[in-house]
């Protein structure tokens, strides 16, 4: 049977795990040759030792925003570099901008968020392994996946986040956690969680939608409030009676003044923010959420501090978007790297670098990094490019000093949030990055437009263009 290169690529890149071993070992440079070398790969694997299906100079775990950026930029620097990307999913789905799908904004369908890996593999020519990472042995320099084990010289981790239901709800059984994930998913990890949330909203009766904001570091700090905006616009358009309740463990949330200004103008009192409230339980059968709210009593103690009281309250919901504590992906635990002691467990970094503190051959980018920069896609893209510079310089026998060490990087992060529809309006935040001697930090700035308002129609256009550009950076 004749197979042309394009078909071969589709087969190899997006195809099932059965060809995955071939895609690695059989192919050293060209993605297009992957499938056609399927038969010879078994033979070449033998030479690698009994357990390994391949060994690569650079192995990148995670074909998300951070991982793809590292892979693409390493190849731009050296097209012959031997790189393998390991990703468990066969297509990419974007979290950025996915709230506009919830809000049913024009042209925003599931298809707007799905990208295939075939184009970047073909364009840049790295190796690809579709499989789930199960274990990492740093002393042997081997990553074990559901599709076989691979050796590396340099390992890059960009596996993103996981959820820490266990820490937030210590009394919940694994069955209860699984149940809650099915009926009230967090939808911070793209895929079926977003589909479930959208279905729940589509099917809802009149009533309230509750979105919870956890404490600690979590993916995309403005995402819950952007989602509240998009749920409100959806309910308005569908004439669903009810409120959007945003319950936060803290006193505020990212870009709060800009969101509040927008909500008051666009949705009146439809979005209600309840601060200082820790979610303690959910009954998915009666649809009741329980939380402990701390408020002031107005009375002072002898040291002139206000006396606080904590009350247990409940709220009946129609749809729940329970966003629990986030943590670094389990892949970080598998690597046995030193992490921060908070509930997230950020990877400790080796100074002004994306090299890890624990192991000079292991790098980390994306949401898991232990710098003070925001867990956003644009930041993952910036970090990915910096990390590629570091690795590329190192493999050429040199070193790369991050420019941020010398001078602040203006607008290293820019993050837009859609707040309204018809006409679309959005708000934004930028972060300047700087090195404080122990970590790279981000300082936020939420600008107003020329008309004195935070929300702007131009910013909504910028959001769409930003998204097009970021996805093109990774996938075209």
């Amino acid at each position, binding site marked *: 049977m004749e197979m042309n290169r394009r078909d071969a690529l589709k087969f190899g890149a997006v195809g099932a795990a059965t060809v995955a071993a071939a895609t690695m070992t059989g192919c050293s440079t060209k993605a297009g040759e992957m499938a056609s070398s399927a038969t010879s790969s078994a033979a070449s694997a033998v030479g690698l030792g009994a357990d390994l299906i391949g060994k690569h100079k650079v192995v990148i775990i995670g074909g998300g925003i951070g991982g793809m950026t590292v892979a693409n930029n390493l190849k731009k620097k050296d097209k012959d570099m031997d790189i393998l990307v390991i990703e468990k999913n066969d297509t990419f789905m974007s979290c950025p901008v996915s709230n506009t799908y919830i809000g049913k904004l024009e042209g925003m369908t599931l298809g707007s968020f799905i990208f295939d890996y075939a184009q970047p593999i073909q364009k840049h020519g790295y190796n690809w392994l579709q499989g789930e990472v199960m274990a990492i042995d740093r002393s042997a320099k081997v990553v074990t996946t559901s599709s076989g084990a691979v050796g590396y010289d340099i390992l890059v981790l960009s596996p993103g986040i996981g959820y820490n239901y266990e820490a937030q709800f210590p009394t919940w059984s694994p069955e209860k956690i699984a149940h809650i994930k099915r009926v009230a998913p967090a939808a911070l990890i793209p895929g079926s969680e977003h589909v479930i949330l959208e279905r729940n909203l589509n099917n809802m009766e009149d009533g309230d939608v509750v979105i919870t904001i956890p404490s600690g570091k979590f993916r995309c700090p403005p995402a819950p409030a952007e989602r509240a905006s998009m749920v409100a616009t959806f309910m308005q358009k569908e004439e669903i009676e009810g409120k959007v309740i945003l319950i936060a463990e803290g006193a505020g949330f990212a870009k709060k003044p800009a969101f509040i200004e927008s909500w008051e103008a666009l949705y009146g009192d439809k979005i209600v923010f309840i601060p200082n409230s820790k979610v303690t339980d959910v009954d998915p059968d009666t649809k009741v959420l329980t939380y402990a709210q701390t408020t002031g009593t107005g009375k002072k103690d002898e040291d002139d501090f206000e006396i606080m009281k904590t009350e247990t309250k409940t709220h009946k919901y129609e749809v729940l978007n329970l966003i629990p504590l986030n943590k670094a992906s389990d892949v970080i635990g598998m690597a046995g790297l030193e992490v921060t002691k908070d509930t997230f467990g950020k990877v400790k970094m080796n100074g002004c670098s994306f090299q890890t503190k624990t192991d000079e051959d292991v790098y980390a980018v994306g949401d898991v990094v232990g710098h003070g920069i925001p867990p956003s896609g644009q930041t993952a893209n910036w970090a990915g490019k910096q990390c590629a510079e570091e690795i590329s310089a190192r493999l050429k026998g040199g070193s790369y000093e991050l420019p941020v060490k010398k001078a602040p990087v203006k607008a290293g992060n820019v993050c837009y949030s859609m707040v309204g529809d018809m006409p679309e309006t959005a708000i*934004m935040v930028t972060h300047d990055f700087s090195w404080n001697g122990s970590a790279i930090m981000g300082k936020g700035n939420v600008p107003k437009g020329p008309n004195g308002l935070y929300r702007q129609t131009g910013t909504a256009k910028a959001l769409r263009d930003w998204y097009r*550009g970021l996805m093109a950076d990774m996938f075209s």
Partner: protein
Amino acid sequence: MDRRNFLKVVGATGAFIAVNPSTIQNELFANTGAMFRAYERVQLLDGAGAPIKISQLKKEMNYVFNYPHVSTPAILLNLDESTAKDVKLTSETGEEYVWESGIGKDRTVVAYSAICSHQLAHPTPDDSFLQYVQKDKPTMAFERSGVIVCSSHLSSFDAREGAKRLSGPAIDPLASVVIEVGEDDTLWAVGVLGSDRFHDYFKTFKPELKKFYGGKRKGKKLVKISAKTVPLTEYTKEIIQY
């Protein structure tokens, strides 16, 4: 054909020429030939069809004309200070080339392709993300104004130095549109210097090309004889600038 192939055939097909400084009067700012491609020599005319005179260009005003293709926007600027001379630029793929200088009596007039070298944001008749930010206006993209800013992902470029990248996710400079002054002060565009993104542009913006130019094929046509040059505020309905 990718850029490398382009460069390999320089001279061989005659489609690409090295510019000999002696062939053009006034100042010339593309002298290596390596990254230069000559297109139709066209005159810049204003909205009413009258020749644009270099002396009439307002300081720090964004003017836009489409060149070298009928759908590819370029910006023309008369800066309020002289440009640098002989700026060595490097493309993302490592090619080096020299941007000689701006033109005009104080070397203040420059033209650049207005398609962002990062991910192609550009002025359209609907809106514009990429333009020069006047010195008295703030920008979030760089520590000072008086630079070209792309507000899509906040990259900035140095208008005085061949649109070299100053900040943001872009790596390449913006491509330069090579312009000349005629004897009577008229302005002419003759070619493009540096790494342009036209190919990706035509691939990426099919619906937009259809909307404004009647399709990709039509949008790809080369500009001939003259190019209408108008202030950005006339070219586009909304300027988005951070």
